[in-house]
């Protein structure tokens, strides 16, 4: 006789009158496969923990976003926000789909060039552009989005040394009715600073003013804020035409659309509350179309979305290290991925699932990472089934910002694999090893030896 599978015994209190948070059952469906590839087999081949990125999901999400805009507006261009995920393979999927590159440092700029993005299709944003960075991007005819007056004058001074006319836009910050207001980047709209900057550029004549840029915030849930922002940029474009007879080639609305992740403390899950690409597209394009900009002069609409385009495509899979009971009797499950590789655990209540079917019984559990630090909490309170040591988990929607903000701390950053359209896994970033870390270190001669 074959024996039955043993399931660990559990007892759980029933809290009458306390419905679950979303009025839904707690049952967490296991996720055993991504794009028909077994997570278990991927962990066997590439180790635990492991980032898994779905190429099909990236392409599907991109096409969906592009269609939302291009079906409403004649000229649309996306530029991939490198900081959101600058693994070369990921960037190149976006470039194959037609995205330009949006970068915010000399390092990201060079990465985009090395990936083969033509210099004139790189948008250079951010407050940190060195004189060398600026010189290089002027020579490459890249689109320089000026952040402050010091940068404007640096560019003007470079025109004395470089023959090529710099292609510029200014970044504009403004009140869109949302809080916090991002007023530390670019020139302010309401106090007239942006208009002042535009006039100085026009007066100078050595710069080619191509566009206007804004990026109003990140994880934005309000489509109205985009409508307001687009109207304000359109208004500046109209004034430029009226006063200087200058027609702008593009308006860049930045990124910031929320992904479907659930923010910490949110009452409803992000899957229910996040506006769709169509909602955002409707707000932005209707504002531009109904502005005073002449139909013949409608500018190219550029978008720099990051998280909304890549979050869904990324997964983090791994194994349970241990279970314990906290002093108050609550369960703690320790997994092999900490906040150092899942930075977004600080913002999101990540959707974490068992890989294999386990008991339907769930228990109030805190999920900790493996770091020796109190802040290493992946989920504070989650009704979670009881996974045994060695059982596997998978965390959804981790594609944005984790592969760029992760920290090497205590242990090594793990492998990243990309599943191609046929489900074939490709290692796209090797896990670090002791050698990777040591190769960056230099030990002075007098510290090479010791006697203990």
């Amino acid at each position, binding site marked *: 006789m*074959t*024996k*039955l*599978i*043993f*399931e*660990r*015994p*559990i*007892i*759980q*209190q*029933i809290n*009458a009158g306390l419905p679950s948070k979303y009025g839904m059952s707690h049952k967490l469906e296991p996720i055993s496969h991504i794009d028909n590839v077994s997570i278990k087999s991927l962990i066997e081949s590439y180790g635990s923990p492991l980032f898994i990125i779905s190429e099909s999901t990236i392409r599907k999400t991109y096409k969906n976003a592009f269609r939302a805009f291009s079906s409403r507006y004649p000229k649309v261009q996306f530029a991939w926000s490198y900081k959101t995920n600058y693994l070369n393979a990921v960037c190149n999927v976006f470039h194959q789909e037609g995205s330009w590159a949006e970068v915010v440092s000399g390092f990201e700029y060079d990465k985009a060039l090395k990936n083969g993005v033509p210099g004139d299709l790189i948008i250079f944003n951010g407050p940190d552009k060195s004189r060398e960075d600026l010189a290089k991007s002027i020579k490459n005819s890249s689109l320089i989005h000026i952040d402050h007056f010091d940068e404007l004058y640096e560019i003007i001074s470079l025109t004395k040394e470089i023959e090529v006319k710099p292609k510029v836009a200014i970044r504009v910050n403004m009140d869109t009715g949302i809080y916090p207001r991002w007023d530390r980047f670019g020139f302010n709209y309401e106090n007239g600073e942006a208009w002042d900057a535009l006039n100085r550029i026009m007066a100078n004549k050595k710069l080619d003013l191509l566009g206007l840029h804004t990026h109003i915030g990140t994880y934005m849930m309000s489509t109205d804020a985009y409508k307001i922002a687009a109207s304000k940029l359109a208004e500046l474009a109209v004034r430029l035409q009226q006063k200087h007879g200058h027609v702008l080639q593009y308006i860049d609305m930045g990124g910031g659309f929320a992904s479907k992740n659930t923010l910490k403390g949110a009452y409803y899950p992000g899957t229910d509350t996040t506006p769709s690409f169509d909602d955002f597209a409707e707000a932005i394009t209707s504002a531009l179309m109904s502005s005073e900009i002449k139909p013949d002069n409608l500018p190219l609409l550029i978008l720099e979305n990051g998280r909304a385009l890549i979050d869904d495509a990324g997964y983090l899979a791994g194994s349970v290290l241990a*279970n314990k*009971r906290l002093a108050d*009797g609550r369960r703690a499950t320790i997994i092999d991925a900490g906040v150092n590789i899942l930075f977004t655990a600080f913002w999101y209540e990540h959707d974490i699932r068992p890989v294999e079917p386990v*008991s339907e*019984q769930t228990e109030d559990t805190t999920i900790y990472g493996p770091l020796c630090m109190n802040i290493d909490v992946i989920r504070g309170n989650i009704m979670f089934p009881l996974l*045994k040591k060695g059982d596997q988990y998978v965390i959804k929607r981790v594609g944005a910002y984790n592969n760029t903000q992760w920290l090497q701390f205590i242990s090594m950053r793990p492998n990243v694999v990309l599943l191609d359209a046929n489900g074939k896994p490709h290692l796209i970033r090797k896990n670090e090893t002791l050698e990777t870390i040591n190769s960056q270190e230099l030990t002075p001669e007098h510290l090479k030896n010791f006697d203990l």
Partner: protein
Amino acid sequence: MLKIKKNIAISDSGFVFDPGTGDSYTLNPTGLEIIQLIKSGKSYEEILQEMSAKYEMDGESFERYFYDFTSMLKQMRLTENHGED
């Protein structure tokens, strides 16, 4: 030896009611089996024997789960508070 309080009602479906506090609980099937074995006065060794005859499991994990489970029963005050008085 561990004893479940006499007044605790345990149904065949795994529903547990403590008339002393008004609290109710649910058990999963293995939890129910084990609590019934404890109730019938079996020792840990006897329970281990019965369970390993029926289930695919190793004694070491069973021991861990068993003591984790019984510590929950104690915490929920479903056991006689022997040793404490």
